[in-house]
């Protein structure tokens, strides 16, 4: 009846800003990023990447309430770079990592195709009945 549309959990509203930056007034070189319509998938990955960078003193994230579709990421740096810039660098690095991963996946898949392990059916469908063939889980 009056339930909100479920896609509002992951689609930005009209004119909604995807991220809101609040600079910390009490801690030097710190900022809080409120990223809306995103969850742990993005947040934890970013936190880990930001934390691995040498200029960062603190990075942490939380999803304040499971029904509210946003997370808050706090970053403090040593002052040689702003939190915004470090977050941007983190994103860029992650994208680079993911694209190398993607290239490797493509290569691996093409090798498997060449081996003829799978006659890849582009329209899905399992050609095999349940329980036939040996799984790696059969131990």
């Amino acid at each position, binding site marked *: 009846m009056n339930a909100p549309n*479920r*896609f509002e959990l*992951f*689609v*930005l509203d*009209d*004119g909604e*800003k*995807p*991220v809101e*930056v609040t600079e910390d007034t009490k801690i030097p070189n710190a900022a809080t990023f409120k*990223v809306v319509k*995103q969850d*742990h*998938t*993005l947040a*934890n*990955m970013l936190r*880990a*990447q930001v934390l691995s960078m040498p200029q960062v003193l603190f990075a942490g994230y939380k999803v304040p309430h499971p029904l509210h579709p946003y997370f808050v990421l706090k970053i403090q740096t040593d002052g*040689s*770079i*702003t939190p*915004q*810039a470090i977050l*941007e660098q983190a*994103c*860029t*690095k*992650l*994208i*680079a*990592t*993911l*694209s*190398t*991963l*993607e290239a*490797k*996946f*493509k290569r*691996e*898949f093409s*090798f*498997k195709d060449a081996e003829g*392990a*799978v006659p*890849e*059916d*582009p*329209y*899905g*469908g*399992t*050609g*095999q009945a*349940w329980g036939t*063939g040996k799984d*790696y889980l059969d*131990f």
Partner: protein
Amino acid sequence: MQYEDAEPIVRIRELKKDRVNFVLENVDLALANSIRRVVMADIPTVAIDMVEIHSNTTVLPDEFIAHRLGMVPLVSANCDEGIRYTRDCTCLSGCKYCAIELRLDVVCNDNRTMEVTSNHLEVVEFTTDSGSADNVQEGDEIAKRGEAFGNPVGKNDPSVPPVLICKMRKGQELRLRCVAKKGIAKEHAKWSPCSAVAFEYDPYNKLRHTTHWYEAEERAEWPLSENAKEEEPPRDDESFDFIAKPRKFYVDVETDGSLGPQEVMLKGLAELQTKLANLILALKPPAEMDIVPGAVDTGINGQTAAWAPVSGGAWDVGASRAGSGSPSRAGWGVPSTWEGTSPAQTASTANWGTTSPGQATNAGSWGTSPAHNVWAGNTSPNVGVGGSSTGWGSSSQQGWGSPNQQANGWNL
């Protein structure tokens, strides 16, 4: 995150029609987990979303059958380009571009129990309500669908047992109309392309991320997983390494057949990159303004040039959802805002001088990376959908592509 600058490694151990088993090395636990989460919850597929029951004299109530129909996996290959989200479509409540119609019409005339299965579902031409067909924007989605698109997985394939929907006795009838729509599993789990994703690391529990409860002997009561063969067993005299991090992940992605395992993995990685790219773009406008004074001409010119194509493509994702004419976009493309703000920021010039070259190189490496192509591929259907968004993209490119004017403005 990459693990200490070592290249990430992927090794596929097994590839079947509906599953892929691979080992991921030299990546961070958080990244591996994000990949797991994204393939489970963020990849669009089609599934039955609305059921109109015309006649149901079976023993199962209408809502019971409707729920069962929703769970039936439908072939969704190339869903990105083959179908729109109904919420993005210009139609009122569904059209042939954003929905697929399936019909079920079964009567039992036999003296035996009859099984109604997913094989009885027939894809038909979408029947539009009268009057709503006028404002549907034409598109080339239908040409991009495979021939089985929207059909239940394994239909008319004798080697695949069909999904049982209900059983009927003589004289019972089931007639209904289903509308399948595109969605993702965050909205409802029926849209998940994966039926199971196994994820394991550290089979010997060397890192002590978990505690094994045992009665007498831990090793005897906790059998090792198959993945333990990939790793060195711990020696008895080995002390606990509390700095060690997991670096080898064993993943098995099993799909329900709506998408192949290859498509699931590649779409998943592309989706993660789209999320990150959108975040960068969201961070960009204020950051860009801060950098302006420090970067002067070279930095800013290089940067805008590198970023322009990306922003044109990736913004369309959000833009087409938001509909036409969202205010944030308008403000973005207007160069006057930039000029207005740049003098005010001069104070921070000194601090920023050091960081701007780094930014510029990042932006450069980015533009050339294959990731870029992926977004373009991803977002192109949206560009096709909205005539308005393409128009915007091209006009803004021009605005972006002429930084000389702006640079001159600042230099004076």
